């Protein structure tokens, strides 16, 4: 917490991040994206456009896919948050992480964390999506490298393996 800033602009937040309960201080209007990256060091969540167009900063908040660049910190008070860092357990990748690797679904990698979180959100609602449903589920996440085919294939493959992450 910075001492030079006005007291009224800071607030205490209780969050559960990747299963860990924590209390931290942040400015109420600080973007959740910045809280995750700077205060918590969770730099797996990327900033692309910063205006909700590209999906790079996608996370799950109370199970819902959201763009963390558009969430003021105060609105995340009490929330249960999952970032890309919360998917693997010990040295075991989540199924989607594994299929992204196998299908070559990641090139430069900036979109990958958001893509995977969007895919997690989709598979939890719809464990065996059609290709069209996959495209719709990922439609808010932009990738400038892959042309999307490998990404769609990675999600379809995770669906075939039948384990909702």
């Amino acid at each position: 917490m910075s001492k030079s800033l006005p007291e009224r602009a800071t607030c205490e937040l209780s969050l559960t991040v990747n299963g860990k309960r924590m209390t931290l201080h942040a400015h109420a209007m600080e973007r959740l994206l910045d809280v995750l990256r700077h205060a918590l060091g969770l730099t797996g969540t990327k900033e692309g456009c910063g205006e909700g167009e590209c999906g790079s900063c996608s996370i799950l908040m109370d199970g819902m896919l959201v763009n963390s660049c558009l969430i003021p910190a105060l609105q995340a008070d009490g929330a249960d948050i999952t970032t890309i860092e919360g998917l693997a357990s010990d040295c075991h990748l989540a199924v989607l992480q594994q299929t992204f690797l196998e299908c070559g679904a990641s090139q430069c990698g900036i979109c990958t964390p958001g893509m995977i979180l969007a895919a997690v959100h989709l598979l939890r609602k719809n464990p065996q999506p059609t290709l069209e449903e996959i495209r719709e589920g990922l439609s808010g996440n932009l990738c400038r490298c892959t042309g999307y085919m490998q990404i769609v294939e990675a999600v379809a493959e995770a669906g075939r393996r039948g384990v909702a992450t």
Partner: protein
Amino acid sequence: MRAHPAEYELVAPRTLPAVLTLLAQEPGSWLPIAGGTDVMVQYSAGKLPARKLVSIWNLPELRRIEIFPDEIQIGAGCTFADLRKDKTVNQEFQLVSAAAGWTGGIANQNRGTLGGNIVNASPAADSLPALLVYDAELLLVSARGERRLPYASFHIGYRKTRLAPDELVRAICLKRRFSEYYAQARKVGARKAQAISKVCLAALGRVTNGVVEDMRLAVGSVAPVPLRLAETERVVKGKRIDAALVQLAKKTVAGEVRPIDDIRSTARYRAAVAGNLVAEFLGKLAAGGLNA
């Protein structure tokens, strides 16, 4: 220049009355923020004039859909994802659920609200033409009480509404009398998700023995406000759908729309597409389009 969060105040009262009290104390100085899909974009770009914000995200009083015998009342804080999931909205107000499905992507649908779309008052908002053709009414609430206003008279100009500085939209009321209409929603844009429409159409029609019994048309992105095509509706009502009527409808649409050139499209393209969408709708009606 990017905004510095320390220069902004954000509070989150737990109830609707607490929010209304705050708005009443200093009318106009608190900007309500729901899912943030518009406000946070302006904020991040350093273009948000307001310095004091009040969160109305997830207030239970605004986040429910109430079903009455003659109408449904959609809480203004319902997200586009909420609208897509609701059974009554899907069955009786397909133009609303269709527009909800192509507003932003999934993440924005999980946060963006119908009330936010209304007060943001963009001429390009996909949900607003649907509200026009369903004759939606708004319940506006303040510490002074509640009033009811047709949506058509609420949205008065480019990003201008009749919302008072101490008011919130509480609910959107839709009369349950359109389930027998053939409904068609169309969006023409660079892509379905995320991209803002070049033109969008919400249309309702009823045909008996090939004759247009009723027709309700509204178009987005062709005027400073979402536009009801009243004159086009008038010229087709009571007429048999044939090639001449379709031509007349297209011509009338061209005379009603007031599109502009901007980064997304040109006035000429928009006027042509609006006419074509209406022609396409008439064609489907003539082909026996009736909701099963």
